[in-house]
């Protein structure tokens, strides 16, 4: 218990330092509008990849519906702030809650499916959500929802991201988290050990969906308009790529994956014709030489060199 709290404080401390540096650079004008927006997107993508990692990486349930949950959170959020003038925080929470509720309702029947079947079911779910939204005139249909107040600021995205990381980290290190990892490792053995596998799959799915919803709310309030085409299954694949690239079952991996993927696509924005080629090439090379992802099941703090440095420090 003590070590968990100590680690949390360390994470929060580190977060505040990073936040101060970035915020300072933004006010000083060292970071232009383009990169500022990309830092927002990186933070939002970290929320999405960390929450997807909880479902795909830690619990081992192959879900492809993350963009759908994000869309639910985004639309619920913008309707509440724009039409009902709710405070931003409440709108974000409501969006997350709506996505979580949907995740729980959908999870109960679909999580009885395994592997490929679950992937197909969640892929379909994401598309259904998008098409339903496209046909609701109240939120603008295919043309999109306009006139959204620009509420997302750097402190918002940064601290929601930090909060997400702390929640996910503590969840996976708890008894509940170990139950989820046991399901990933061997579902039958986990059940034989007394783990209620359906319950934990649904819990992981619901928490993941909730944070995707919150991320959707943050995303929507970055721009003045959102439309359903921002939440296609290609988006879900994108988040999956971040998770796999960073390493399934590694939270630091999710951060690295979100950072690298977003950074590459932003850095290559000026060369749109090469962008997808380089992107695809990077993925092929990664899967060839490091199929377990950049971090693959381990956290940054568990990597040999850092452990050795710690040990050396201890001897002195």
């Amino acid at each position, binding site marked *: 218990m003590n070590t968990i709290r100590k680690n949390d404080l360390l994470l929060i401390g580190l977060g505040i330092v990073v936040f101060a540096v970035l915020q300072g650079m933004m006010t000083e004008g060292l970071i232009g509008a383009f990169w500022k927006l990309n830092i927002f997107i990186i933070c939002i993508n970290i929320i999405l990849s960390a929450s997807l990692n909880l479902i795909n990486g830690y619990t081992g349930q192959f879900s492809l519906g993350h963009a759908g949950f994000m869309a639910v959170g985004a639309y619920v959020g913008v309707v509440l702030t724009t039409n009902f003038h709710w405070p931003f925080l409440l709108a974000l929470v409501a969006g997350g809650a709506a996505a979580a509720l949907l995740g729980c309702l959908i999870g109960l029947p679909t999580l009885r499916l395994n592997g490929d079947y679950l992937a197909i079911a969640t892929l379909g779910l994401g598309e259904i959500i998008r098409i339903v939204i496209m046909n609701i005139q109240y939120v603008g249909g295919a043309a999109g929802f306009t006139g959204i107040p620009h509420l997302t600021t750097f402190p918002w995205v940064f601290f929601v991201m930090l909060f997400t990381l702390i929640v996910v980290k503590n969840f996976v290190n708890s008894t509940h988290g170990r139950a989820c990892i046991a399901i990933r490792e061997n579902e039958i053995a986990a059940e034989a050990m007394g783990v*209620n596998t359906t319950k934990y799959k649904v819990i992981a799915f619901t928490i993941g969906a909730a944070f995707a919803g919150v991320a959707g709310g943050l995303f929507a309030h970055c721009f003045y308009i959102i439309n359903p085409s921002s939440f296609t299954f290609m988006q879900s694949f994108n988040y999956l790529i971040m998770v796999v690239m960073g390493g399934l079952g590694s939270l630091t991996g999710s951060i690295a994956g979100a950072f690298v993927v977003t950074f590459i696509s932003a850095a290559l924005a000026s060369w749109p014709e090469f962008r997808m080629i380089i992107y695809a090439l990077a993925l092929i090379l990664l899967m060839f030489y490091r199929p377990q992802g950049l971090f693959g099941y381990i956290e940054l703090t568990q990597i040999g060199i850092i452990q050795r440095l710690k040990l050396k420090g201890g001897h002195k």
Partner: protein
Amino acid sequence: MGTMLQIDDINVYYGAIHAIKGISLKVDQGEIVTLIGANGAGKSTTLRTISGLLKPKSGKITFEGKNIAGLPAHAIVKAGISQVPEGRRIFANMTVQENLDLGAYARQDTDGVAKDLKVVFERFPRLLERKNQEAGTLSGGEQQMLAMGRALMSRPRLLLLDEPSMGLAPLLIKEIFSIIQDINQTGTTILLVEQNANMALSIANRAYVLETGRITLSGEAQKLAASEDVRKAYLGG
């Protein structure tokens, strides 16, 4: 001694396939009971039905006076039945210690768990040596020991063993079976499913012979081992 587990006329299906056709059996407290029979006779299916991994279509399973037929597996573990699954099914990417910790997943008493961990390490000294090793890197015999130790961590009153001899060298099989006897002597009732009928009959009190989903013979293990029919069919003459 009282009856611990009583199975009355259960029927289990895999889709349209009628795998268990009205099996009834009982296990008394303190016994070792074995189910023997050929491939596909329904031995593992019976075990998996008891532990809740499969649901019977009809029939009653009574454990210590309560009907447990159709309960989910995690509730049955809490009731006091623990299974060592066929093919061991250890958590390969976790350490030996983490595997054992998960065995105690359904328990709340931290002190009792720590005590039982000690007992398991005393019983399987090799697991203590390899405590921090990934379970997937253990040898077959060590993995079987880990699977048994993990099942014991839930402090079961009834232990279900599914083919503990599978894929092990003869010398190791002997060791595993003497450990099974040892576990039984410290007060755990055992229901054992085995293809190695010779070994199983040598340590069991009673036995049931299964053939294509039905019980064809039952009785004291020693008598069955001596019977002409069983010798011919399962013991190699």
